């Protein structure tokens, strides 16, 4: 629990006095905490440096080393102090955590050493206060990354292991996505890369003019027209391979629709389509113009390289994410171009034989000037034109220079982020899980305590003492408080599974089977007595009756219907009013024992303290345990019950 909550527990328990008039059942007796000797000062000697603190301060966090009885292992009776052979500088931070409730991270210490100290004293790293948390995490991540790099350099990284029974499809897809997993995938990867390069080079070389053999006059022809067959064969081969690859990917993709919509597949399609269109288009002059245009799309094959290079992908992603900056750049450029083109046009209007024939014609001049290219094909000749021209070039430098660093820094940020994003996500999951576990720890502790009470009632005082010793005084009192609340409201705390079971049972409707008669019989004599003996008798009766799982399920909902039956008759007289609390008392005793009966089963029979009823593991055991295991399967509760009882 959080800091200082232990301080307020007495007040919370005292405030429970407010529930008393409402409680319809007698509240449970308070735990017998041995009289505290008042507060005392403890001396903690850490490697020679003495720290003194109140015992209450350390007791605030009972699940740490200093707050629990674990520190007794370090007690030195001769000197009357607790001796720890650890770093005294780090201990200061640990002790301050007890005092203030916030764990701070020392700036000048190694984060690994700090972690080790925390682990020794039983403090979870998640307790680091918000003020130091960022820095702590960053340093820890840096450390972990450095260590991870070293490790990776040592051993060849292996891809994640595939589940054994994966289909051909899944293996294919994995081979496509991570080429490093198997040799065949790697070969395929390099082969496709090679063919992409070959295809691109062929496209380029096609257009180089080759000098033909002695032709008069020596006419230069592009190589593509000189060796049409060779290029056609090469093109066909490449396209065949690309088509095969595309079809294989389509087959292996886990989600075909998503694959069809992805960018890479679109690039693939665009790369191979011109060839097929070219096949079916007849070679006449009318459409060959369009056909030639299509060939331009073959250059998109170069984008297929982005599968092979992560940097390229990141560049593409950066451009996509810098869309706003790019948009701003474009917009401001357009504005400036229009302004300056207009100005230049009107400035140069008077000159004859001028290049600035219209404003759109002046656009070309403005762009060339603003990007400081300065081809010189259009130059102003008037003085005004020259002045505005120089202003144009100066402003061009500024306008373009502004968004570029933003885009660059975006790229670098995204690149590094990409590296760390996955690691951060994993850490977050772990952190949240731990916090959830710590939070549920308190609820589980109370439910655990209730199960132990089920053991206590029937067991001897020895068992009781054993169970009790595991909980600190604070926990005992807190559980007593929760128990009082249960008694006040006549409802019990359960966990989610039992609750949903009970809900389901209620919705199924009452199955008043033969167990009705048995339990009503059991209730009869029980209502006159008030303590544990009738509970035992009832438990025996219930156990005998509920020897089958189905009946036990039925009696669970049957108890609910009993509750419904008892609630409906409105009490009229004072005497029946007095009877009603007793009824609800018995009802709850039934349910509690019933729950206890089921829960005591998972413990191994050898350790059951239930000597009076040797039939307990036998009769209701097998069936109830199957009920428990099959329907609930709460692994978190089972090992704990075994642990407690095996003491």
């Amino acid at each position, binding site marked *: *629990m*959080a*800091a*200082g*909550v*232990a*301080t*307020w527990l*007495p*007040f*919370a*328990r*005292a405030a*429970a*006095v*407010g*529930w*008393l*008039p*409402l*409680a*319809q*059942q*007698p*509240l449970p*007796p*308070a735990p017998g905490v041995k*009289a505290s000797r*008042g*507060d005392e000062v403890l001396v903690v000697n850490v490697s020679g440096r003495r720290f003194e603190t109140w015992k*209450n301060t350390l007791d605030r966090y009972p699940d740490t080393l200093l707050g629990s009885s674990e520190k007794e292992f370090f007690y030195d009776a001769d000197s009357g102090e607790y001796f720890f052979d650890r770093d005294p500088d780090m201990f200061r931070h640990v002790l301050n955590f007890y*005092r203030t409730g916030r764990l701070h991270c020392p700036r000048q210490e190694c984060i690994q050493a700090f972690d080790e100290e925390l682990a020794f004293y039983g403090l979870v790293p998640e307790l680091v206060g918000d003020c130091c948390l960022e820095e702590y995490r960053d340093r820890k991540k840096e450390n972990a990354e450095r260590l991870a790099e070293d490790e990776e350099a040592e051993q060849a990284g292996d891809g994640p292991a595939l589940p054994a029974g994966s289909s051909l499809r899944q293996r294919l897809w994995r081979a496509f996505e991570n080429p490093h997993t198997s040799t065949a995938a790697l070969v395929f990867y390099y082969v496709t890369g090679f063919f992409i390069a070959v295809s691109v080079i062929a496209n380029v070389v096609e257009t180089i003019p080759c000098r033909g053999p002695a032709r008069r006059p020596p006419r230069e022809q592009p190589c593509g027209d000189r060796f049409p067959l060779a290029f056609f064969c090469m093109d066909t081969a490449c396209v065949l391979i690309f088509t095969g690859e595309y079809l294989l990917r389509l087959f292996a993709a886990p989600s075909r629709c998503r694959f069809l919509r992805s960018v890479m597949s679109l690039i693939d399609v665009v790369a191979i389509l011109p060839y097929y269109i070219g096949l079916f288009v007849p070679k006449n002059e009318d459409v060959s113009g369009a056909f030639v245009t299509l060939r331009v799309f073959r250059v998109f094959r170069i984008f297929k390289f982005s599968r092979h290079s992560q940097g390229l992908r990141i560049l593409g992603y950066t451009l996509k994410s810098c869309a706003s900056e790019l948009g701003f750049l474009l917009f401001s450029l357009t504005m400036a171009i229009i302004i300056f083109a207009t100005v230049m046009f009107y400035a140069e209007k008077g000159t004859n034989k001028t290049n600035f024939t219209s404003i759109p014609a002046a656009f070309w001049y403005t762009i060339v000037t603003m990007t400081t290219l300065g081809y010189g094909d259009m130059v102003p000749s008037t003085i005004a034109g020259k002045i505005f021209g120089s202003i144009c070039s100066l402003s061009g430098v500024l306008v373009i220079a502004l968004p570029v660093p933003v885009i660059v820094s975006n790229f670098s940020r995204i690149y590094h982020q990409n590296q760390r994003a996955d690691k951060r996500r994993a850490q977050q999951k772990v952190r949240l899980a731990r916090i959830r576990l710590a*939070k549920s720890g*308190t*609820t589980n502790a109370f439910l655990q305590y209730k199960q132990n009470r089920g053991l206590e009632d029937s067991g001897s005082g020895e068992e009781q003492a054993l169970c009790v010793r595991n909980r600190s005084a604070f926990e005992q*009192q807190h559980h007593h*408080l*929760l128990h*009082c*609340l249960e008694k*006040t*409201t006549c*409802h*019990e*705390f*359960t*966990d*989610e599974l*039992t*609750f949903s079971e*009970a*809900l389901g049972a*209620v919705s199924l409707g009452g199955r008043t089977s033969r167990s009705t008669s048995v339990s009503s019989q059991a209730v009869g004599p029980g209502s006159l007595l008030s303590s544990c003996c009738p509970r035992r008798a009832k438990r025996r009766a219930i156990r005998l009756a509920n020897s089958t799982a189905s009946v036990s399920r039925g009696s669970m909902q049957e*108890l*609910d219907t009993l509750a419904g039956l008892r*609630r409906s008759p409105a*009490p009229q007289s004072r005497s029946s*009013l007095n009877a*009603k609390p007793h009824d609800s008392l018995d009802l709850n005793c039934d*349910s509690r024992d019933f729950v206890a009966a089921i829960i005591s089963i998972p413990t191994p029979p050898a350790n059951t303290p239930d000597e009076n009823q040797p039939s307990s593991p036998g009769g209701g055991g097998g069936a109830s345990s199957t009920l428990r295991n099959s329907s609930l399967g709460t692994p978190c509760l089972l090992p704990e019950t075994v642990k407690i009882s095996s003491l």
Partner: protein
Amino acid sequence: MGAVMGTFSSLQTKQRRPSKDKIEDELEMTMVCHRPEGLEQLEAQTNFTKRELQVLYRGFKNECPSGVVNEETFKQIYAQFFPHGDASMYAHYLFHAFDTTQTGSVKFEDFVTALSILLRGTVHEKLRWTFNLYDINKDGYINKEEMMDIVKAIYDMMGKYTYPVLKEDTPRQHVDVFFQKMDKNKDGIVTLDEFLESCQEDDNIMRSLQLFQNVM
């Protein structure tokens, strides 16, 4: 005295800074330090010994260095004891029962006075305190609506996962039972005398009142 000094200093700092930054103002308010009366006085007013008062104050001061608890902090503290459900409404009523002067904050004296009644007080005092808790509008009578609010707040603390499953009209039935027992003349409201009388007739309540004696 401490309170006066504290508010005076905060007023001064407020005048020095004309900018009305809300966060700064809140920060200054929390700097207001309230010091309780002397140890001897508190010992005389309550049923605690000096040592007990020392332990209590140390814990209190650690939690609230400014010396006062406001309702939000109170709700948070109380919520930690009942992680299953929602303890905010009951904490609200409890806070107003503690805050006898209705200032919106609980000082150490209020805290210790209430604890003294609850832990070391006579049966009469405890019952009177409980009546005061139930009487939300502090008019000296408990009517069904007030009781309904209190009972609902208590049931809220149980949370969702209970056995048996909480039904919609459980609180109402509980209130009806309570009124059946407490309201002697059946006029729909419970006065302090009816309350004291009914509680003293009930053995369960009398026995339970002794439960929390050894909390300290």
